[in-house]
């Protein structure tokens, strides 16, 4: 570490993968300049500006996965939910985020909202717009995607697949 580098925190017993299959147990340390990852081959240093946080997702078995982009490669850091959330919360103050909203955290998703509107019988983009408070173009684009993926019909009626997503994801 360079002389002026300051350690912020260190996390043990988290898992690292770039393909979501091969997980390696690692130690991750964050400093004001770098993210350090220790594998069985020793420490690897990645400058903070080469790392960004994309999102955090919940996984089975009380685990969570932090999705980061390291040197343009999608990287997953997984572990027990509280540990991964702690890591996410601590890193958010240090690393740039891939979020479009500076300084804010969004616990929402436009697709989920449009799906909910369709589920409750609001199908025209101009009617969905005031309910979900999103741009007309964004809503049209999501509806097109839903039609392509067989989530709703041309008329905006949810298919069985669409209803299943509503139920499974607990959107209702």
């Amino acid at each position, binding site marked *: 570490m360079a002389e002026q580098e300051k350690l*912020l925190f260190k996390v043990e017993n988290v898992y690292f993968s770039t393909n979501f299959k091969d997980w390696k147990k690692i130690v991750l340390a964050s400093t004001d300049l770098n993210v350090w990852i220790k594998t069985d081959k020793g420490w690897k240093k990645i400058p903070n500006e080469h790392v960004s946080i994309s999102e955090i997702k919940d996984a089975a078995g009380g685990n969570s996965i932090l999705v980061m982009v390291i040197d343009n490669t999608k990287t997953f850091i997984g572990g027990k939910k509280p540990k991964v959330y702690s890591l996410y919360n601590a890193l958010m103050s240090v690393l740039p985020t891939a979020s479009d909203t500076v300084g804010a955290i969004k616990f929402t998703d436009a697709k989920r909202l449009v799906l909910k509107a369709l589920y409750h019988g609001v199908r025209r983009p101009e009617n969905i717009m005031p309910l979900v408070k999103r741009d007309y173009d964004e809503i049209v684009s999501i509806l097109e995607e839903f039609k392509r993926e067989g989530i709703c019909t041309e008329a905006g009626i949810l298919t069985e697949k669409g209803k299943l997503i509503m139920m499974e994801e607990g959107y*209702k």
Partner: protein
Amino acid sequence: MNLSSFAKDALREVGNIGSSHSASSLSDMLSAKVSITPPVIDVIAGKDMAEKVGEEGVIVSVYTFGDAITGTLLFFFPIKGALKVGQCIGNPGSVSELDGMLQEVGRKMAGSFVKAISDFFGVKVKISSPDLSAGRIRSIPDLLAALGVNKEGVLFFSTSLQDSDFTYCHLYFYLNEEDIRRIMNVELQGFEEEPLNFSELLGSFEKLFEVEERVNDFLESITVPVAARRAFLRSSATGVFEDDRLRLLIENMLMRAGIGEKVSLQSKAPLTYRLRVEGCHVCAMVPGGACHTTSTAVGRFFMENLKIGVTIREVECRNAGGAACVYEITLEQIDAFSVLPTASDIVLLNLLEKGTMQLQEIVQKSDLPKEEVNEALKVLEYYGIVQRAATEVKMTPLGEVFLTFARNAYPAKEEVQEDWDDMAKIEERIKSRKESMQESEEKPPWEI
């Protein structure tokens, strides 16, 4: 370095590392399950310690260690635990034989304790048994006095190694001021270039992790009925938000999770709330600040427990010189509208769908009490669903869309647990959840 502020953290960190290894070592020797009680960090004097361990019949094993890291470790074997250990190891024929066996068990446990901290710090640590024969040691206060602990006591890390029925032994560990100074300056191995200093690392992430675990416990143990979510949204409009049960639960949960000393949630505008955290603990927990802990706790609660999407922005931070940490919470309208409507709202909107009406006419045609109509219209107006001018009421364009949505979204009757916000019961559920988790065998996360 502020020694006192680090002393507890240092003791806890080192004690946790060592004691779990001592327990494993005892478990191996006895071929039996040994669990450890949650550690306690407290100032203890000789008399207090005698009370805690029950002086009569106790066999003591004492070790000190030195070199790069120094400290003192004591094992107290209550008579029942001592006999059980003796039986498991080799049926001693006399008290002195039992004492010899326990000294050997203590030496091995101390060895494991010291090896764990030696491995953690990457330094050599030697263990020895102090010569206490010179003094007249007839009691625990005598023993502590011989070890240099004054009458006021010192800060001890303590835990008990036990079976489900009884205690094998009590483990006490302390670091004096010089020990702490020394440990703080130990350089941790690991980084390829410049190593880390223990004092830099101490406790920062662990404290954050403890808060996050508490948050997670609450989120997994709280079930909020739809009726309570509806009351929360409607109380913002009717001016009774101060007494809303869900609001109080959110504040209470965040304080109990360790987010801050005082938390208050205020309604600012339709779908917009302000959360104020006074004495924020998390913004100073890691050197870079971790205020996102509050944002994610609130965001997860709304999304996971209330099914309402939110955007949270920190607008003021104590770390940046603010008086408190303040967050603005904006709710997703469609999610809020899913739980907002009552049967009365739908009756009123069905009438207003036909056109502008006088209040008197609405009351007459709806067949609802005037107060109920007034209260419903107050809520609908607050959320931009109807507009009122003097006694005239009309539905807005948003109201027309809302009605289509609300007719389908209005939830069926639900079973409501009246005590959903009873904090004592929530804490009980957390406790039993943790106990059941301990009983189930832990699997590596990626085998699940």
